[in-house]
């Protein structure tokens, strides 16, 4: 059929991890768009690195053309598939929240480096001094945004956006290290509950490779 011919072929290459690439995976799934979920092992990477023009992952290939930068990719797919707000201002808010989430990743990263044994350090100290303050600082804001949006299980507007998916994944990852961290943010948890209740997403979460992050 002509419509299938018109659709580009998509291949998403990333290490065997969820990270920010997972947002794009779930956008493909939510929109019912076929894509190749290409996972590269750390052992394979040195030999493959040259093939990826920007020397980093994830990379989205659209009809064979490589594109790096996880959030730029997620935004592009969100726009293509309709998960980018109902108007330009909503879209801008979704982007602002995603950039704020990136700041959160920077703030909490040192805790994960220690907790995952990549860097020497006292995990309990890192939890108290790095992780918990970072969660409080950013999630107080996200909780307020979700409430100000009407506590309708979305952060922006009345439909799923890529930011809903992003936070849903963050909560999942961090909760596995620090259970109960998000109990103080029920409106955020409601967004996660709504995302994960979508049948296609629920099914994906059950069958996807189980990774720590």
């Amino acid at each position, binding site marked *: 059929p002509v419509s299938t011919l018109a659709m580009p072929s998509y291949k998403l290459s990333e290490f065997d991890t969820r990270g920010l690439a997972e947002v794009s995976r779930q956008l493909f799934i939510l929109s019912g768009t076929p894509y190749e979920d290409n996972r590269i092992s750390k052992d394979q990477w040195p030999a493959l690195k040259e093939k990826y*023009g*920007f020397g980093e992952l994830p990379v989205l290939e*659209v009809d064979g053309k490589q*594109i*790096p*930068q996880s*959030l*730029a*990719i997620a*935004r*592009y797919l969100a*726009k*293509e598939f309709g998960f980018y707000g109902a108007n*330009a*201002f909503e*879209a*801008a*808010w979704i*982007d*602002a929240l995603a*950039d*704020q989430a990136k700041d959160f990743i920077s703030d909490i990263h040192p805790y994960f480096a220690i907790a995952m044994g990549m860097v020497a350090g006292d995990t309990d100290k890192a939890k108290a001094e790095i992780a918990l303050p970072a969660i409080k600082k950013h999630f107080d*804001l996200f909780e307020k*945004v979700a409430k100000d949006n009407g506590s309708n299980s979305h952060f922006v507007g009345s439909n799923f956006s890529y930011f809903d998916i992003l936070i849903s994944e963050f909560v999942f990852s961090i909760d596995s290290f620090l259970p109960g961290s998000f109990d103080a943010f029920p409106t955020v948890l409601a967004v996660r509950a709504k995302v994960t209740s979508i049948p296609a997403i629920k099914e994906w979460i059950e069958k996807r490779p189980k990774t720590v992050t």
Partner: protein
Amino acid sequence: SMLRYKLIYFPIRGRGEVARQLFYLAGVPFKDDRITISEWSSLKAKTPFGQLPVLEVDGHQLAQSFAIFRYLAQEFGFAGDSPLEALWVDVTADQHKEYENKIKPALRFQGSEEEKEQLMRNVAEPARDKYFPLLEKIAEEHGSSGHFVGASLTWVDLLIAEHASILLKQFPGFLDRYPTVLAIVDAILSTPKLKEWLEKRPDTAF
């Protein structure tokens, strides 16, 4: 006031300049609200993320500099001519931000000359040499006529040109290895309407 737009930021270029340039290039009037530190301390809690810049559109606030730049660029036609071009503008901007975050501590270092030189050599130069070849590659594959992406001015052109002009003033020679980038920066800064703004804007150190 009947102005639709207000940009709230400190009286510096910093993370507000690209937004100001977009308004000027589009010929759209806006309130350029340059606030003091004491004004900020009372305003902070009333902003979405406790940070500046903040853009107000018909009284509705928007935070995060790149979200603001992208929003204005899309409204005014400086975001690329297709979804794929807009994507490459975003990719380039994100790459640029990662590089700038790495290099900032080295550029801003105030200490001994020796420590500064070490930071430049061990931090700034490797960050530059990781990013600028990618920028050249992007410009070659996706840009034309003196632009990094596409054939007309985009917000990432403005972002990179602003950064490069600071480097050219404070660290001359730092970008000598990247003449194609410098040529594009030069073309951007020579855009007549932008040149007008550069000449009349308030003069601040950064």
